[in-house]
């Protein structure tokens, strides 16, 4: 490995990229070859730094905004047999193209950082790395890969008979870009079910990562075409309206105030927030404060049941309470930025008080006065959820008068108004061209949206459970996002055309097509039953476990049947396909055994109904095992014949 003239190349090594860089304040050239990364000092002709590509564990690049174009590499120390990582920082110093060069290097390295190698032997790299999902925070501009454990599954690993040109193999093997990786990561993060399946199959090396994603092309495509994801706002429910739960035994009322609820209370009732800030914890404890709050009239007055409200002293809150919410007219000034189609206040100036007849006293809006705070509460809450301007903001806005409208603002408002009006009056139905501009649907959790509605209306979900679901989902979602999960992703040999054709379109809603597949493969499967049962099963460890099993089985079956060759149909299988098929068959029989055990243990604990849920899955697994065995027999026999 000693270097000569520039630097000596190993057999078959070619230089892919080169760039002028600085390394520990010395100027030199960085080479990216098909095998190694090499840095040569300007004054010398042998590499100062060099390491093999697979040794690079992660890379970081400076943000595009930063003045210097830096790349930082973490490289496994090949000399010491440990997990210790060496850090190298190179600065790209080309006067104009430094950033470009950096990006080229970054992209190249990215393809190896996501380990190039794996079980099925197309690369020359001797060790195979398995994908491993670990959650570590990554900065936005860099990709991280972490600990790779060299893995097992030796029986499937074969050394290629003919040594291949590594560069060629790289071409053959579609490298995935950083963007794709990001997309996969976010997709997994946003779809817990998918992640579960991914973890249990790809993580355990049953299915290769490429295959996994190859069968989900449609999902990836759909996901990519969605320009921006649905952002989840506040729940519509009125959380601040805490209702007690009664404890019949101890005759107590229990109120549950979570931080979210408290936050909402503060937003809805500014007086409470003021009181809280002034009194807690200097004057009274937090616990006492909320006790007082719940016993106060303030708490009860907007709930309409004045009769039940305790008549305790209310000084704590009423002091901070401005009674303006009871006033009919709150706004003193004109609202400027309002949709001209909706500005009903513009008309009120036309009619003078005192003129006209009062026909019906019940039509008098003044009658609303008693419930005004209640009505305003809803208007306020709803605009809060929407993040829209509500009356109190307008009021503040007018009170402070910070922003005076000058003429340019007025022009702008007039322009907007005109546009709104013009669009509104235009009758598109009578136009020659009428392509209605429909808003694009951005739904993250499609399953809940589409299948939830089919499952039978509101009675199925009680209010609490709906809320619980939403909360659960949000918690999960935000947790995953915080962790910013990133994975190393194995790139794998091109997938069989059969697989991509049969599955690329169907993977969007994972559950249903799978069910169909099973139904078509195994006669008389109880697939539909399982689906409708989804909403009847009680939440619990059994349900989660069952669903997980169900999904894993489906994934396995999907891949199995995609690689299975039926004589007389399609192209005969390649050795890789056969090998994969065998491997899957193996995994399926293992899975079958696990399920069988689960079923038996359920029956032994007298849970026959639950056990019966496994029947259909087992049946379809069995079918595939049978098929697998026969295929092995036939292929081996055909080999013998050949």
């Amino acid at each position, binding site marked *: 490995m000693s270097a000569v003239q520039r630097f000596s190349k190993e057999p078959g090594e070619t230089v892919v990229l080169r760039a002028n860089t600085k390394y520990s304040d010395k100027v030199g050239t960085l080479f990216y070859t098909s095998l190694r990364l090499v840095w040569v000092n300007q004054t010398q002709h042998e590499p100062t730094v060099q390491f093999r590509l697979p040794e690079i564990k992660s890379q970081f690049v400076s943000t595009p905004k930063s003045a210097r174009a830096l790349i930082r590499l973490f490289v496994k120390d090949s000399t010491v047999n440990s997990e210790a990582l060496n850090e190298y920082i190179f600065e790209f110093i080309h006067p104009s193209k430094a950033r470009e060069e950096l990006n080229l290097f970054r992209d190249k390295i990215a393809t190896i950082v996501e380990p190039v190698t794996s079980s099925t032997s197309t690369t020359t790299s001797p060790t195979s790395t398995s994908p491993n999902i670990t959650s570590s925070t990554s900065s936005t501009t860099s990709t991280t890969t972490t600990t790779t454990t060299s893995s097992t599954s030796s029986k499937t690993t074969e050394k290629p008979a003919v040594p291949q040109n590594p560069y060629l193999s790289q071409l053959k093997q579609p490298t995935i870009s950083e963007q794709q990786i990001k997309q996969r990561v976010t997709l997994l993060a946003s779809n817990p079910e998918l992640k579960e399946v991914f973890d249990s199959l790809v993580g355990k090396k049953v299915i290769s990562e490429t295959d996994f994603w190859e069968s989900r092309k449609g999902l990836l495509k759909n996901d990519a075409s969605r320009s921006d994801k649905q952002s989840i706002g506040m729940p*519509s429910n009125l959380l601040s309206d805490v209702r007690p739960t009664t404890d019949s035994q101890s005759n107590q009322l229990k109120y549950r105030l979570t931080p979210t609820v408290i936050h909402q209370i503060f937003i809805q009732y500014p007086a409470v927030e003021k009181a809280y800030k002034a009194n807690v914890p200097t004057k009274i404890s937090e616990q006492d404060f909320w006790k007082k709050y719940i016993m106060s009239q303030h708490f009860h007055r907007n709930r*309409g049941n004045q009769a039940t409200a305790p008549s305790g002293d209310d000084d704590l809150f009423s002091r901070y309470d401005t009674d303006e919410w009871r006033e009919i007219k709150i706004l003193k000034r*004109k609202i400027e930025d309002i949709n001209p189609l909706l500005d009903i206040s513009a008309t009120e100036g036309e*009619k003078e008080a005192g003129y006209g007849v*009062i026909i019906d006293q019940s*039509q008098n809006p003044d009658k*609303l006065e008693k419930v005004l705070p209640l009505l305003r509460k809803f208007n306020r809450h709803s605009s809060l959820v929407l993040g829209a301007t509500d009356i109190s903001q307008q009021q503040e806005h007018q009170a402070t008068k910070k922003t005076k409208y000058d003429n340019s603002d007025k022009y702008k408002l*007039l322009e907007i108004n*005109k546009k709104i009006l013009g669009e509104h009056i235009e009758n598109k139905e*009578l136009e020659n061209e009428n392509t209605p501009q429909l808003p694009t649907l951005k739904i993250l959790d499609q399953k809940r949206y589409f299948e939830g509605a089919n499952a039978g209306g509101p009675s199925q979900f009680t209010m609490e459970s709906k809320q619980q679901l939403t909360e659960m989902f949000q918690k999960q979602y935000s947790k995953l996002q915080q962790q910013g999960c990133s994975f190393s992703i194995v790139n794998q040999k091109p997938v069989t055309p059969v697989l991509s054709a049969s599955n690329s379109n169907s993977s969007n809603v994972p559950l249903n097509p799978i069910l169909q597949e099973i139904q078509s493969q195994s006669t008389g499967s109880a697939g539909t039953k399982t689906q409708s049962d989804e909403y009847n099963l009680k939440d619990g460890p059994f349900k989660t476990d069952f669903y997980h099993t169900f999904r894993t089985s489906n994934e396995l079956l999907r891949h199995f049947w995609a690689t299975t060759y039926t004589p007389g149909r399609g192209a005969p299988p390649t050795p890789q396909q056969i090998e994969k098929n065998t491997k899957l068959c193996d995994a399926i029989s293992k899975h079958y055994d696990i399920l069988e055990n689960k079923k038996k243990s359920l029956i032994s604990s007298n849970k026959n109904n639950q056990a019966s849920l496994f029947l259909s899955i087992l049946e379809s697994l069995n079918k595939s095992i049978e098929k697998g065995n026969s295929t092995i027999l036939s292929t081996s026999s055909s080999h013998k014949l050949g």
Partner: protein
Amino acid sequence: MKFYLEDLLVYFPYTYIYPEQYNYMLALKRSLDSGGPCILEMPSGTGKTVSLLSLISSYQVKHPTAKLIYCSRTVPEIEQATEEARRVIQYRNSELGDQAPKTLVMAMSSRRNLCVHPRVSEERDGKVVDSLCRDLTSTWVRENNNAEKCTYFEKFEEQGKDILLEGVYSLDDLKEYGIKSGLCPYFLSRRILDFANIVIFSYQYMLDPKIASLISGSFPTNSIVVFDEAHNIDNVCINSLSLNFDNKLLDNSLKSINKMKQKIDTMKKEDVDRLTREYTSLVEGLARSGVRRADEISGDPVLPQDVIKEAVPGNIRKAEHFLNLLKRLVEYLRNRLKPNLVLSETPLVFLQSLYHSTQITSRTLRFCSQRLSSLIRTLRLSDLNQFSAVSLIADFATLVGTYTTGFLIIIEPFYQARVGHQIEPIFQFSCLDASIGMKPIFDRYRSVIITSGTLSPIDIYTKILKFRPTVIERLNMTLSRSCICPCILTRGSDQISISTKFDVRTDTAVVRNFGSLLVEVSSVVPDGIICFFTSYSYMEQIVSVWNEMGLLNNILTNKLIFVETADAAESALALQNYKKACDNGRGAVLLSVARGKVSEGIDFDQQYGRCVILYGIPYINTESRVLRARLEYLRDNMQIRENEFLTFDAMRTASQCVGRVIRGKTDYGIMIFADKRYNRLDKRNKLPQWILQFVQPQHLNLSTDMAINLSRNFLREMGQPYTRESQLGKSLWSIEHIEKQATSKPPSSATTTTTTTNGHSLNNNHNDTSPDINMNDK
């Protein structure tokens, strides 16, 4: 496209047309030809305004002197109509090219909506804006060099006289022009009003004599007057001739009288001349003459033909004498306004007893209004807001002195929230006969067009407005699919019948059923739902009970809730947020009141209104004495039975409410009439024909669950793609369909008709316009 309608070439700014639009224009055209009033009902959302403006603007090409006076109810509607006019005129003029007549289309509104003065325009109360404006613009203020002036008005005074605008000016355009040119848009609009070919403003400018005498008094008699959304026109007429006051107002007017007295005293010391000058001009009978626009106060509260054109009688020519008389009148009124008293009497009886106790004659009373405005000007009072109370009393004096029949005085207790929740007596001077206000319009103008989406039954309108229309037309809705799903809901899911009848409306079962209806509907209907309650007080009751039941929180899991409140600005914001919620997919429920501000003039097209629920029949409270008096009057003088009128009034309000959801033919919506009384034929039949055509037997007598099922199926059906091809020829016409109509054959004078392969363009000669206009439709 453009096409012939009998002998008139009509410019219509779209490629396609609804058949009802064509028929509407035809009826309108015939009515313009024959002159006289006409009444046209056309389903809401089928492009009434654009048809009307297209036809009349095309008619104006032929008859250039005919001015169009287009009246609508609300400012948003005025703005929309102006935009429609912009489109129509743009298309017409682009087709006419050089031959296009110079046209000025303008909207008009109060100072509140036109002012651009940085400080004054911020005010939301129209009266405050008026009086602040007067503070800056009255002649006597401007004489003082140190006083603050409005630069926009000053510039208008300098240059405004020569400005003649052309084009289309909406309220916003006027404002923009005002800011850019530095000219006051309000006074500019007042000036150019007389030159405009199309004027768009609110009813008050035609029907309220106080304003009409200043604004529209000089319009030519061959003008075409259009009252759009005219289903409530009788109430507008009545309101513009009625007034009411209570003790507080009487107190205020006494205060202002005293203030004016002090003013007179100081003026006697400083500037006696001005008082004597006023006296002499009054002797000459010039109480209102020679007033500059900036100084004018509202005009006489009585109709033009009833204004006395004589010199003010001697006993009130002197300012102090007049104030003494007013004071005596106010004191007399205070004596009459006793708590816990219910009384109704005719103006004649009132005048008699007034004469007995104060010696004031009806003749003297008639002059009060003019005399007061003369005095206010002489005393140079610009803060008219302060003197609004005494002006009201003077107006009352003039009205009561002028009209003896068709009016009634009613004194009754009235709940006052503002004054410590007390029951205070209120004095109402009420007009009972809507035709009094309409008569001068019908008499004066050649064509008066009354049109709306809901004018059924038409014969009631002709009776209460006392006119004989030359053309009556009720148009159906042509549709290739049923886009309206009316549900007559008579009972809840528990089979308990629902109604807002007075004796059952507060029953828990009814309120609960109403609530669960909304919860269920909110779970099946996408996007926007609008609920109308019969009155504010009923909404108050219901909402607080629903809140106690926790029903509102159930609704919140499906949709957000917005409520119309008593404050218009607040409601406008709620509306804006409601639409936002519909746009972003959360969906929303709007709780609102029939006869409230939202029920008039706000469109809930497409996703903004997929369902409207009408809780109960919006009857007027029959306990109301004013209403009773009106009913008796209608029965005795117009042969309209009380129940007939009440049902008519309730059903027109109902159809207005539900009609808000259909704005076009691709639009669709569910209309839930939640009251068992709607199931009765006499009620149902009062709905407009275009709603009735969808009321099939399966839509009648439903319970909540049945209605939900019906809605579900309806929504599924409506969710299917709807193409133009399926509508063409049936509910949508292209130029070919029009040319097949017997009434659209080009006139015989046309020499050639060449049709190209497109079948769209033809060359044509026409008598009125220059030869060889290229008639390509777009």
